[in-house]
């Protein structure tokens, strides 16, 4: 049973033999992924071709580099600060081993990928967090990379497009990861005070210390359809209040209704919408200002 209403709903496929039938083109040997919303299984190749969006409108999680490929103009992304990786400042049990496992499994060195790019022809700094790297959790390295991104953008007078996706602060780094909230907020505030634009794009999930810092600090905050966005986890709230929560709680649509995001933008529209917003906020020609 689909519980989320997306702008794009599945067509009535009853005439084609019912909704649970696999599409005819599916190769039996091809790996598939089940959609948690409409429960159809989708061949992976088809899912990738649709930028990890099911025909019912459900947005699957997406790797940071895949997302950058979707947003940045072809061949314009130039990665920065990739030399910064996590250490184990507290000597937390099992953390080093976990880091190396995740690094080899995800192919990323850290939970965020940052760099310079063009979107719709507009130069900007772009960062994207990776759901397959400890659910995008923010430790010292993530905080440092995002801070440097804002500082570089401030120095070069460029806007920042930040794709937030995170379970929150990385607890294995204790207070050092908590302090990254203040650090990133400080850097983005300085970027803002310099008169520059920051567009935050929130995807599933954006929670905890990331929601309570740079994710909610955007001049413009966009959200993907159906993403979970909130501060406290649903389970914690249910335990505290002893009440079951509606399935729409903390979804993008809930945040839009309560006034905390500017717009919900489907993945297929994101590049165009962000490009348009960048054009709207393009700095006037410096020479003109000088006159």
């Amino acid at each position: 049973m689909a519980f989320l209403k997306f702008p794009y709903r599945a067509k009535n496929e009853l005439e084609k033999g019912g909704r649970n039938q696999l599409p005819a083109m599916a190769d039996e040997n091809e790996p598939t992924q089940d959609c948690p919303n409409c429960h159809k299984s989708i061949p992976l190749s088809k899912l990738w071709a649709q930028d990890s969006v099911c025909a019912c409108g459900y947005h699957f999680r997406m790797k940071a580099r895949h997302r950058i490929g979707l947003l940045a103009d072809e061949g314009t992304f130039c990665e920065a600060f990739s030399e910064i990786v996590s250490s184990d400042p507290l000597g937390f049990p099992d953390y080093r081993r976990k880091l190396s496992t995740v690094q080899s499994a995800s192919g990323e060195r850290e939970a965020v990928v940052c760099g310079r790019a063009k979107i719709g022809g507009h130069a900007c700094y772009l960062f994207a967090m990776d759901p397959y790297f400890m659910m995008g959790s923010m430790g010292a390295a993530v905080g440092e990379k995002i801070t440097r991104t804002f500082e570089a953008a401030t120095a070069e007078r460029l806007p920042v497009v930040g794709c937030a996706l995170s379970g929150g602060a990385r607890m294995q780094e204790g207070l050092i990861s908590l302090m990254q909230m203040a650090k990133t907020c400080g850097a983005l505030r300085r970027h803002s005070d310099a008169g520059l634009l920051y567009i935050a794009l929130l995807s599933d999930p954006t929670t905890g210390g990331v929601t309570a810092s740079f994710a909610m600090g955007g001049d413009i905050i966009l959200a993907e359809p159906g993403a979970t966005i909130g501060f406290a986890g649903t389970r914690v709230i249910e335990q505290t209040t002893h009440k079951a929560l509606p399935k729409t709680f903390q979804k993008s649509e809930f945040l839009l209704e309560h006034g905390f995001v500017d717009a919900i933008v489907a993945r297929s529209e994101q590049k165009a919408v962000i490009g348009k917003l960048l054009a709207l906020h393009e700095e006037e020609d410096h020479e003109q200002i000088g006159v």
Partner: protein
Amino acid sequence: MSKSAYEIVQQARSNKRRTGLDFVEHLFPDFMELHGDRRYADDPAIVGGGATLRGMPVTVIAMEKGHTSRERARRTFGAPHPEGYRKALRLMQQAPKFHRPIVCLVDTSGAYCGVGAEERGQGQAIAENLMEMMTLDTPILSILIGEGGSGGALALAVADRVWMLQSAVYSVISPEGCASILWKDAKLAQRAAECLKLTAQDALQNGIIEEIISEDEGTENELYARLEEKIASTLAQLKQEPDRLNKRYARFRAIGQKAE
């Protein structure tokens, strides 16, 4: 024999402990409470207002857990709603206007977890405090007097100086929360408390705070007197400090700064 980390956590949580208002009463006898966030409500988990400290006008923001069970329930056990953070921000934003330094007393297990708090933007309220406190052009001193629970505590601790009471704790997550997420067993909280490095001594070693306020020496009143003296001299010194905002930014900028 020194206490284990988890014993310190329990001590910090104890409902017999001095609360925010106890400190306010002793340090700022002429404190005048000012209510409301001017948007939605007044959150009793955060108390704010004006006072003088040795003749110097100051803005005081304190988290308050309450002593009696009725009082504790009314103050949601010191877990602030977004309205609390917005009230604190409103009062703190007035401080530079009237040339008053700010003293924050932090004591919370964390920001309140609830439907209303989420509906009204708990995350956004904390984020706004972090951004604004970084640029408020007046001295800010934050003292962790009991529990420093995650983002809910940090939202009043973006300051020029951060101190901790000897028996206070400051942590990214509760030891129980950490144990249940990492090891699927909240009973391992003792071990988690050790691993999280959440005591004042740990925070000092990791460069998170500047000073530990000892609670061993002297009587209760002597502690307050010592603290009053220390706050007054630190605020006076911070008032004269050139380039204060850049230093505040650099203070946080330096934490976790490394490239391997």
